[in-house]
């Protein structure tokens, strides 16, 4: 048996296979802020994330995400993301800048919103600017001005503010 044949018959078993911690998440670029986690305490607190992020806990400070962000928790500060999904029960107290698609479902937001496309089904206190398209679903309550390229408003939505639709 030559050297090549020898190694072909060897089954290499990784010593890490039994380690559940390594199995839990293979995606190195994903950041998860667990529901019991609180990030705060510095004057210029910030999270700068090169990949994607999921926030279940509480964050005080700037959140800057290169990829997509999913919010289930509470953020007290500016949020920048490529793509942003805000899920039910979450709260954002600060401005939102989203470079592509923003989707807000049943959240509570105090701050100005900028996005390319936005779907909103939430309570919002602040101005909304959607450069391309804006959809407002029936359980929305919006206090603030809206500027967008095109809009659709489902019956039942509550609006208080100026509306500007301009191509």
């Amino acid at each position: 048996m030559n050297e090549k044949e020898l190694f072909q018959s060897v089954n290499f078993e990784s010593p890490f296979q039994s380690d559940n911690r390594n199995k839990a998440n293979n995606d190195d670029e994903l950041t998860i802020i667990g529901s019991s986690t609180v990030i705060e305490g510095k004057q210029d607190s910030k999270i700068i994330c090169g990949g994607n992020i999921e926030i279940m806990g509480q964050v005080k400070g700037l959140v800057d995400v290169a990829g997509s962000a999913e919010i289930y928790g509470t953020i007290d500060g500016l949020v920048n993301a490529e793509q942003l999904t805000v899920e039910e029960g979450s709260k954002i107290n600060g401005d939102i800048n989203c470079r592509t698609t923003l989707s807000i479902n049943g959240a509570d937001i105090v701050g100005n919103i900028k996005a390319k496309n936005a779907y909103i089904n939430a309570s919002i206190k602040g101005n909304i600017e959607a450069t391309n398209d804006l959809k407002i679903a029936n359980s929305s309550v919006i206090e603030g001005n809206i500027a967008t390229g095109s809009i659709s408003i489902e019956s039942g939505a509550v609006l208080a503010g100026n509306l500007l639709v301009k191509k």
Partner: protein
Amino acid sequence: MSENNRNAQDLDEILEKIENIDEVKEVEVPLFENIKFESPFKNDDKSVSYFATPTTIEESDGEYTVIGSSTVIDSNIKCGGNIKVKGQVKGSVSVNGSADIFGTIEGDIQANEVTLEHGAKVLGNIICKADVNALDDSKIVGNIVAKNAYINSHVEGDLEILNEVKITSTGSITGKIVTGSISVASGAVLNAIISIRR
């Protein structure tokens, strides 16, 4: 000076010495009884002594917070579950469960258990209820307080260990070590003052 005065002076000196002896005895009270662990969690019983079995928050049992490899957090982190730091944290990290560090932390760490994986770097103190495990290629600049410490890495700082310090052949420590017992493998680099107490 009369003889009575002299006797009185001698007595004073003796009394002073006795007082000093008492002071020394006070110092020799086991080091770890004096350490109070302040939990970052409000629902945690603060009267629990430092090395008592950790109280866990039910909700967060087994929960993981993960700091991705390209993420930088410039803030303090408090976490009821466990944490994995692959990226960079500039600020303190307080964890109820275990802290698994692959990246860099510039700040103090408080956790039940701390593991530094290959390539991890900690610039700050580590306070740990159970074990600190520093794998090779990792680096700690700061003090370590823990129950047990397994050092395969480079440490610059003082160690206060209740039970056991194990330094393997790739380990190196510069600083003071106070411990219950110590084992050093040949090849380890030590530039330390060591005190072993029971």
